[in-house]
Structures are given as C-alpha cells and as structure tokens.
C-alpha cells in the first residue's frame, strides 16, 4: 500500500487552505514535500511496509493537527522525524506481541535518526528519484525483474520467492541484491544527467 497520494492530498490541501491562499500552513506544505523521506524514515525503524504505512497515518494525523494550531516549525524534517519516532515506539509497544517484530531499541532509533539527519541532501529531489525509478524499472529484465516484482509487487519474502520460482534462497538473495544495485545505479545516472547530483 502506498500512502502518498499527491492528487488527493493536494485536493484536500486546497480545501483546507483555499487554492493559492496566502495563508497556506507551511507545515502542510512541507508535509507534502517530505512525505516520501518521512515514510522512508519510518520504514528504516520498522523494516515492515505495512507497519510503516500504519504509523505514517498516525504521523500524518499528528502533523495535520499541529497545522490546525498554526504551530511554527523551524526544521520540519527533524520535527516530523521526532513525531514519527514516538509513534513508531508506541506502535512497537502495542504490536510486538502480535507481530514477529524485533524489539524496539532506542539506541538503534538514535543511529537511524543520525543517518537521516546527516543525509538530508539525499532525500531532496525525492519525486525526481521516484520518476526515474519508474523509467529504470522498465529496463529491468529477466531474473532481476522477476524477483523485484515478487518482492515488492506481491510483498513476498525471499523464502516464498525461492519456493515460487524453484530457486535456492541464496539465488533469490543474490538476484534481489543485483537488481536493487542496478536500479540504484540507473537512478543515480539519471540524477547526474539531470544535474542534481
């Protein structure tokens, strides 16, 4: 599931603020701008797409609630990550018995926060990265394509992919790793060509 729905968000944003309003809450604007990097941060803490999306909604509610109060935020990414971190922590508390999740670790969350704050430049141009990813996916063929589709399109684990394709789990791991590297390289090439790297 994807929670980033630019059209709908933009529509709601217009309803809230009025299209082209001079009083646009900057928090909402920034939320739209940073949604993918925020989701990536939550994913880094949960390593589970469903959980990340569930937490992302909670964070979205909290942020929109702050927007209603016209809260002033100086560093939106850091502020939003702090909200996200608390929500992830709460999510872990509520779900660790129900789901097979690794226990919540404050020290691990610290290092993830450090990683994201150090690499904010990487998180810029996220929409461009997403557009280039689509183009790069079209160039992916053969085994790489199969494993990427099953892993992300169908949400299968490596063991399930291996079973489905009649491969060894090790082969799936290698193919997946190669495919991801190929995609990352392709995106980077396109970003360089576009002059943003």
């Amino acid at each position: 599931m994807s929670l980033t729905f630019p059209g709908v968000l933009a529509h709601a944003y217009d309803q809230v603020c009025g299209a082209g309003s001079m009083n646009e809450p900057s928090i909402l604007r920034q939320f739209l701008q940073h949604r993918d990097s925020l989701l990536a941060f939550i994913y880094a803490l949960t390593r589970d797409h469903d959980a990340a999306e569930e937490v992302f909604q909670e964070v979205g509610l909290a942020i929109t609630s702050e927007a209603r109060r016209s809260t002033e935020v100086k560093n939106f990414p850091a502020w939003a990550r702090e909200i996200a971190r608390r929500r992830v922590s709460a999510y872990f508390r509520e779900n660790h018995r129900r789901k097979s999740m690794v226990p919540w670790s404050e020290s691990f969350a610290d290092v993830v926060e450090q990683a994201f704050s150090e690499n904010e430049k990487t998180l810029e141009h996220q929409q461009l990265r997403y557009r280039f990813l689509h183009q790069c996916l079209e160039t992916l063929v053969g085994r790489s394509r199969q494993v990427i589709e099953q892993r992300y399109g169908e949400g299968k684990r490596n063991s399930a992919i291996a079973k489905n394709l009649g491969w060894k789990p090790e082969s799936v791991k290698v193919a997946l790793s190669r495919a991801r590297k190929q995609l990352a390289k392709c995106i980077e090439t396109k970003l360089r060509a576009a002059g943003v790297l």
Partner: protein
Amino acid sequence: MERLDELLLRQADGELTPDEANELEALLRSSAEARAKLVEDCLLEVHLHKALTQQPVVAIPARQRYRGVVKRVAMVFATAAAVMTIYFLVNHLASRSTAAVAVVADVSGTAQCVHNDGRQTLLQPGSPIALGDRVVVGSEEDDLLAIAFPDRSRIILSPGTILHFRMPQEGEGKRVHIEQGVIQVSATKQPADRPMVLTTDHARVIVLGTRFRMYREAEASRVELYKGKVRMVQEVDGQTVEMEEGSVAVATAKAAPLQATTLSVGTATLQRTFLKGGQYVAFSEDGKFLAAGRNIGPIKIWSVPDGEVRGELNWRRGPLFGLFHSAEGRFLTALGENGTIGRWDLRTKHEVIEAIDKHHSRARSGAMSSDGKWLALAGPLRNARIWNRQNVADVFQFHSIVPSRGKPWCVAFSRTPRLFAYGQWDGTVSVRDMAADQVIHEFRLRHTPTKIALSDNGRFLAVFSIKDGIHLVDMQKGDHHELWPAESAHVSSLQFSRDGRFLLAGMNDGTARVWSIAETEMRLVIDTNFRRVRHAAFSPDGKYIATASDSHVKLWSYQLP
C-alpha cells in the same frame, strides 16, 4: 556494504537475530558510508513498494475520454487511509459538523450523491458520505468510485452501482444496502459486537474482516469470497451459510437452498507484470510475443519467455480497441476508434498502412479475423464495413452491411468457415456466412449487445449485454445458455480459446473468468488485483492468459480441470 545489505534484508524478512541486530547497529554507528547507504536503501524500498503496488486509474470524466491526454492518478487500495486523514483534517479545519460515515477516496468518471433532503452533489475525492446518503455511480465503462471508512475498510463500486448508507441496527457497526450493481470489499477486522453488514433484497452479509465481491443481480445476490470469512443470510427464509475463503454463494428470493461452493476449480499463477503496458493485448500466433497498447503512447511488444521488451511502435491516433498479430507473425495491426488502422512490419518496425477508413468519426467496435485477412469496423453510421486484404498493401472494401435493426454495436469473425457476427442497437444478433452472403443465424436479446465473440470453428457464439449477461449460443444445436447473469458485473472483452473449449471474459469487477463450453460452467476466476480488467486474451498455445487494466498487463499461467 555487502554485509549491511544482508543484514537489512534479513531484518526486513523478520529473520534478524539479537546478535545480528547489535551488529547492524554497530555497523551503522561506526560508518558514515553505512548510514548514507541505509538512507538510500530505505528511500528506494519505499519507492519500489509504491511503484509496484500502484494501480493507476483514468481520472477524467467519461465524456472527455476521447478528447485529449489521459491523466493517471494513483491507486485506491493504497490510499484510502491517507484520504481519511485528510478528510478528518478538512473536517476539523472547516469546523463542519456532519454525520459522515465514510469518505470518497477516488472517483473515475461520474458519481453522484443523493442526500436525505433530495439534494444531489457530484462526488469527488474527499467528499463525505453521511447516513441516509445514496451513492450512484455512472454506467459508462470508465465510471468507478472508491469509498473508505474510518477503520480503513474500503469499497469499490463498479459502473451502474447504487449504494444506500443506512442506519446500523442493533449489533451492527455499519450498514450498507446495495440497490444494484457490483462492489469489491476489502474490510479490516471488524469488532465482533459491531460488524459491518451489507444487505440486498435477497441477502444479508455479516462481514468479519475480509476481502470479497458482492453482486446485486436481477434475480439473486452473489458473494465471492477471496479472503477471510463472512456469514451470509438469505432474507426470504433466514437460511445461513458460513463462507470460507475461495467460495461462492448465491441468495435468491425463491428460498432456494443456500450453500457455499468452490469459486474456482481451476488455478492461475501470476508469471509477470508488464508495467505501463496497455489496455489491449494480443499474443503472437506462436505465443512467444505479447503486444499491448493503450490510448496514447507506444505499443509495446514483449518476449513472453523472458519478459524483455522487444520493440515499441508509435501510436498517436487516439483510443485503441484492438491489436492483432498476423498468422505468420510478421505484422501487427492496431484498430483505432477514429477509424484509422495502423499496420507494422515487425521486422523493420515500419508502418505499412496508416488508415483505410476515414469516414468513421468514431467506431464502436472492431474485429480482425485470426488469419489477418479480414477487418471490420462498426461505427456511428448505420453500416458495418468489412475489408479484405489479399496482400500487405492491397486492401479493399469488401462489404458494407446495413443492419435492418439499428446501428451495429459489436462485431466478430470466425476462422473457418468464414462467419461474421454483429450485434445491433435493438438487441438483435446476426451471424452472416460471408461466402454465401446470407444471414444464417439471428436472435434478439433484451438490450444492446456490447461484446461479441465467435469460436474459430464458427459453432459457438458468445455475446454480452447489460440486461442479458453473457449468452452462449451453440449454433449447431440452437441451444442458448446464460453463463453470467444480467445486471451484474459488466464484461469488457470476450474471447474463445483456440480449441474452442473455453470462453474467457475480462470483467470490470477486476476479474477474468473462464467458462467450459461443454459444461457451460465457470471453471476459473482470476482475481487480478486490478480495479477493472479492460481486456483479457488466451495465448494461442493455451498456456497463458494476459489481462490488461487501465495501464498494466499481467501474464498468468493457468490450469483447468
């Protein structure tokens, strides 16, 4: 960095041991490069997940379909919850007080809300739906509506569907009455003491947290359950059935026995997804290539065995309604709604014919015989035009049939003998022997047929209309069978398998279905995860089925008993 990759993958699979978790943390703490890699990795993960689970929707009103560029918006399943977030925000900020029970997550085409006080409003993403509201979806092919509830349950309404949001009764969390049409439901786990209840005149379905489709047909109500459990109650006599995953049950007004049976005895396995493929698909005669095209953009050709793109052909002539490979595999023909026809030599990618009929301003249906020699277009004029091609460039108009019962609406050819079938506006279906130039079979449906197919040997004919469902006709014996009921999910394509044993239908409820001709029974239901299937095709070798949505194409291998 290899080790980092491995640890992150193991963590995502839930296989990380405590020691490995410590190792991962230490690795990240000690290396800036590892931290940078983590950030890139997570962004790529999120983008990949989003890109490969996305199901775009044509988001322009149906009346504008033919005018210009088709815009795409993102999928509904994925976004319903986000829309709820936005809706709450809108609600709070606007300080509005409303008894909203759900919100519109996405609209394609036209959908209206008829409020309790008689007001009518056009629905758009974010529109609230209150108790007492009636939601009406237009009946054009492109009309579709997605509704999200606060608990993240979702309902997708097919064209022509009317839902009434009623006051829940005691012990019910929400109550939705289906007055007509088809819905796809994806319900989150419901509170045991306040479940969602869906009703029709024939049935009541108590939802416990599940994914299913519900069809309010003329004479019955049908539930197809894909995941979880539901309890179905037949209203007329109170019979109850507990439905399990992969089952189907039909409640009627005649107190017939209510039982759950197996939905699909055949199986289908997804082999590949071709992103941004197209709305129409065609296999080459040897089954090795698959072509797909859509209203705008290139027609793509993939190699079926390895999924690689083998060519792109330029198509800029507006909406398509057919793609056809020639028997020897050398040519690909595209039929356009505006009466133009593109034909490419696949060896040179050179387009050899651009247009053969400029009289049609907008055709309704087109067909090409499987040997590639005959073409037909049914247009807005009163006639159906048929062309014959003796060689690559020699195309001449062979016939112009003027049906006696109104404009032609859909057309099809058989292979041997050469038969031409067409459905007319008043519901008449005619089959003409082209050698003898005479009508050999004719019957009338209640409503205008919109899809038609002939088996290669010319014995069987399948035809669909909204008020008649799918009719199978054995022209040798004169038998008629109803394969799919009237006033249920609409059919977007019909095709017989090459051996004539099976009929495949692409449906606008997101499924593709296969019927056995001999037993006249449904044997396979493919839940494609598309919101609607635009076109579905058998491969000539009988190994695969391709399904096309508004954009993506999926390739399935299948087994039929």
